[in-house]
């Protein structure tokens, strides 16, 4: 076996090894994600009950799950799509920070209300409180175990 043949085969095998190194790196990243997801089970932070919804979207009486950040508005890309003529495209956002829920009005045309009082910027929201966008009323509730 001469030097050239050795070199070229070392390089060739190195190439194949690098392909597997890439796959290995991905596998490791996937495992890490899986372990992270397993370690922090998703807490159900809260949910919205639809109290009143004259237009029917969201369905009255239904319960909507909430993420740490939940957008509300008329646009289809919102997490909660509210189809009401008095609701803006991007109307409000509900966030969970630390241990409390907050609702933020996104400069909507007709405003957002918590238990009847208008929201100016950010306002805290408690379990049992009702928010209103346009003609639609939603109540924040705890998740029962």
């Amino acid at each position, binding site marked *: 076996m001469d030097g050239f043949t050795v*070199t*070229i085969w070392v390089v060739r095998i190195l*190439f194949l090894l690098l*392909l597997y190194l890439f796959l290995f790196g991905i596998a490791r990243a*996937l495992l890490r994600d899986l372990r992270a997801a397993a370690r922090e089970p998703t807490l159900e932070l809260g949910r919205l009950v639809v109290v009143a919804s004259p237009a029917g979207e969201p369905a009255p009486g239904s319960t909507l799950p909430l993420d740490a950040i939940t957008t509300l508005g008329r646009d*289809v890309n919102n997490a909660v799509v509210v189809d009401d003529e008095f609701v803006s495209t991007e109307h409000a956002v509900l966030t969970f920070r*630390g241990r409390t829920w907050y609702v933020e009005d996104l400069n909507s045309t007709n405003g957002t209300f918590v238990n009847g009082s208008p929201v100016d910027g950010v306002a805290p929201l*408690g379990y049992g409180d009702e928010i209103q966008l346009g003609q639609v009323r939603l109540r924040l509730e705890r998740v029962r175990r």
Partner: protein
Amino acid sequence: MNADGPSTPAAPALPRILGPIRPRPRWREARLLAVVAVAIVVGSVSLALAQRAPDAPPGGLEPAEPFHLAVYLGVLFLAHLAQVLAGRRTDQILLPAVGLLGGISLLLMERLPQNLVVQTLGDTDLGLADVQLVWLVLSIALATTLAIVVRSDRWLRLYKYTWAAAGVALLLMTFVLGTEINGQRLTLSFGPVSGQPSELLKVILVVFLAGYLSENRSLLVEQSTRVGPISLPPLPYLAPMVAMWAIALGIVVVQRDLGAALLFFAVFLLLLYTATGRPGYVVLGLILFVVGAFVMYQLVDHVRTRVDIWLDPFADPSGAGYQVVQSLYAFARGGLLGTGLGGGLPLISGRLPIPAIQTDFPLAALGEELGLIGIMAILGIYLVVIERGLRIGAAARDDFRALLASGLALVVGVQAFIIAAGNLKLIPLTGITLPFISYGGSSLLVNGIVVGLLLALSDKGVEPPPPPRQPGRLARLARRAAG
């Protein structure tokens, strides 16, 4: 609850949801891209060594065509940088995986004789690798642009019938106006530019199906028509399924494109199952497929030829079965480790042993040069792309996005499966391309669109805000003591 506002200090600066762009590091993507870059450089060095005369002293270990290499790696780096600057939390594995596939494609095109394809631009002649590099760059640029720019899926979600109409129009245009190559009407040419609309059609099909199925999902899941012991989809919804089947058969007969027909029907069936979760639909679809295939075999000549060649290509090894036989010979020559990049594909009277190797048989060439070990790695990379796409679908916010992402992943994965299986004589050979590896502008651009859309869909949105910082133990005790 306090009415005077949050007890935590200051209205926390909440990053706006659709707010200004803030750069964010993407370490995982960077690490993977580094491995990709090193792999491609090493592959290029291996190619250069093979292309040198065997008795020349191994002076330097320089890569083949360093210019192509630099451009390609530069584009990958720029794509990474662009996504870092855009700051969206999109998937970090897709771009490196696709980048590696593209790099392997580039190495393969470098290795093949450059005069297989010649495009003249002004007074320069561009060879095979040059043209492929151009398309790769455009494809990655397109994918990155879509990943950064596409924020809303409204334009896909709301206009599904428009999309369907556009798809049908495209199909009809190809039927009527297409140029015939090898008996297949697949290409539309407008002046110097030509493309294969069937590539774009598969994306349009997925968009339409995602919209249609997500809209009618509950109906399809809950209702059914019973025919004896079998439950079929509700009759009004059975119609589109049969229509889909009929279109697939039409494509086979009129366009003689078995690969596209198979791809469309398979993707349709898999998306139908994803949306409804009812295996009965898949069984029905498979029955339709078997019946259709049998009828096609009896009636249509070119289908019969393809199936006969598949069953025994060695019966006519220098005539009809030549391509498949040579493909199998190539795999056999590769063995476990392959012959090394540039070391395989012995010429017959100065020509490559496998015709149309850069479009239809890149896997056979890679099988010969990288061996079984290399092929398994490449199949692994495709599985990674599919897995990412399906995971984006599983984590999606609503049904439309879930089906869209899954469908896009399937379109790449099923296509790769079909052509790989054809090269390996597991199913009859079809003329579709191997995504990201085959030569072909339309294929690369459309697959770039697919990856771009997947990246856009994978945006995890804004990070959940961190919980407000707890004051230290002592400070808490102090506060409690104070009141």
